[in-house]
C-alpha cells in the first residue's frame, strides 16, 4: 500500500494546484498594475476646454480617483452613469484623463451625457497614460493623500465595484466605509 502513497499524494497535490488555478483564472485576465504602492506619476497637462494647465501635484493631501476615458471607447459610455453618481456623492475628487481623443468630441460628450469630472486633463499623445501603465480604457486609479497609487480597476465601473473596491479602501476621514 505504502508504495502508492507517494504517487497518489503527488497526484492529489497536482489536482489541487490546477483546481485553484482554474478557479482563479477569471481574475487573472486582468493584468495587475505595477504602480500599486508606488508614487503616482507626476504630470502637467492642459485642461479640457480651457487654456489652463492641470498639475497632478496639486492633488497632494487629498484622496482622489483618476479615470482614463475617450469618446472612442464604448465601455466608457457604460460606466458614465456610475461616474455621475460618484461625482454626485462628493466623496472624493474625480479627475478625468482624456486619452488620445479629440477635444471637440470630448466636450460634446460631456455636454450630452453630463460632466462627472472636477477637471479633465488632456493626454492627446498618450504619453501620460504610458506613465500610468494604462493599456485600455476605461481604467480608474485610486490615489491616497500621500500621492501613492492604492488601487486600479480595469474596465467599466459600476456601483458594486465602486463600493467594494474603492469605498472600502478609503479611510473614514476621506469619507470611506473602511477603517
Amino acid at each position: 500500500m505504502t508504495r502508492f502513497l507517494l504517487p497518489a499524494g503527488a497526484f492529489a497535490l497536482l489536482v489541487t494546484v490546477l483546481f485553484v488555478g482554474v478557479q482563479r483564472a477569471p481574475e487573472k485576465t486582468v493584468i495587475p498594475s505595477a504602480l500599486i504602492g508606488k508614487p503616482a506619476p507626476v504630470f502637467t497637462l492642459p485642461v479640457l476646454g480651457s487654456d489652463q494647465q492641470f498639475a497632478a501635484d496639486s492633488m497632494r493631501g487629498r484622496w482622489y480617483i483618476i479615470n482614463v476615458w475617450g469618446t472612442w471607447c464604448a465601455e466608457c459610455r457604460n460606466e458614465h452613469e456610475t461616474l455621475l453618481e460618484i461625482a454626485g456623492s462628493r466623496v472624493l475628487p474625480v479627475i478625468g484623463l482624456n486619452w488620445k481623443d479629440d477635444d471637440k468630441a470630448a466636450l460634446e460628450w460631456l455636454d450630452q451625457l453630463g460632466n462627472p469630472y472636477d477637471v479633465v486633463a488632456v493626454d492627446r499623445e498618450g504619453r501620460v497614460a504610458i506613465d500610468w501603465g494604462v493599456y485600455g480604457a476605461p481604467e480608474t486609479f485610486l490615489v491616497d493623500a500621500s500621492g501613492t497609487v492604492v488601487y486600479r480597476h480595469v474596465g467599466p465601473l459600476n456601483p458594486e465595484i465602486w463600493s467594494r473596491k474603492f469605498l472600502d479602501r478609503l479611510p473614514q476621514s476621506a469619507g470611506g466605509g473602511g477603517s
Partner: protein
Amino acid sequence: MSRWSLTPISLITVIMLVMGGLPARAIDPIELEQPVLQERYRDLTHELRCMQCQNQSIADSPVGLAGDLRREVRELLLAGKTDAEIRDHMRERYGDFILFRPQFSTRNAWLWLTPLLLLLIGTVAALRVIRRRVALVPADQSMADETHGNSGTSGRNAS
C-alpha cells in the same frame, strides 16, 4: 484547355513565390538614422508585449498603444538609454508582463526554480529505481547459479 492554364493551386503558388520575394512590410515604417540604434530598436520592440493584444509584440501590433510604446522606445534610445534601462522603464509602468523574457526576481523566483526542482526530484527517483534494478541482477544471477548447481535434485533443467 491549354497546357499552361492556371489552376487555383498553381495560381496560389505563383502568388506565394512573388510575395515571398518581397521584403516583409513591417507595421512600423519608421527607421532610425543610425543602423546600430535601428537594430536595437528592432530587437527591443520585438521583446516588449503589446498589452492590448497580449500575444503580439509591440513591433507586430497595429493598435494605437503599441505605436505609442514604440515611440517611447525610440525616444529613450535617442536619449542614450541602455537596453536594460529601457526594459526597466517599461517594467516600472506595465509590470513583468510586458517583457516576453521576464527577468529573474524574488517575486517570480519559484517560477524559474520549480522546473529545476522537479528535474532534481525526478533524477533522484530515477537513480533510486535504477540502483534497485542493478541490485536485482546479481541476485537473479546467484539464484540462477544456485538452481543450476542443484539441478540434479530438482530435476529441472535450469540452463
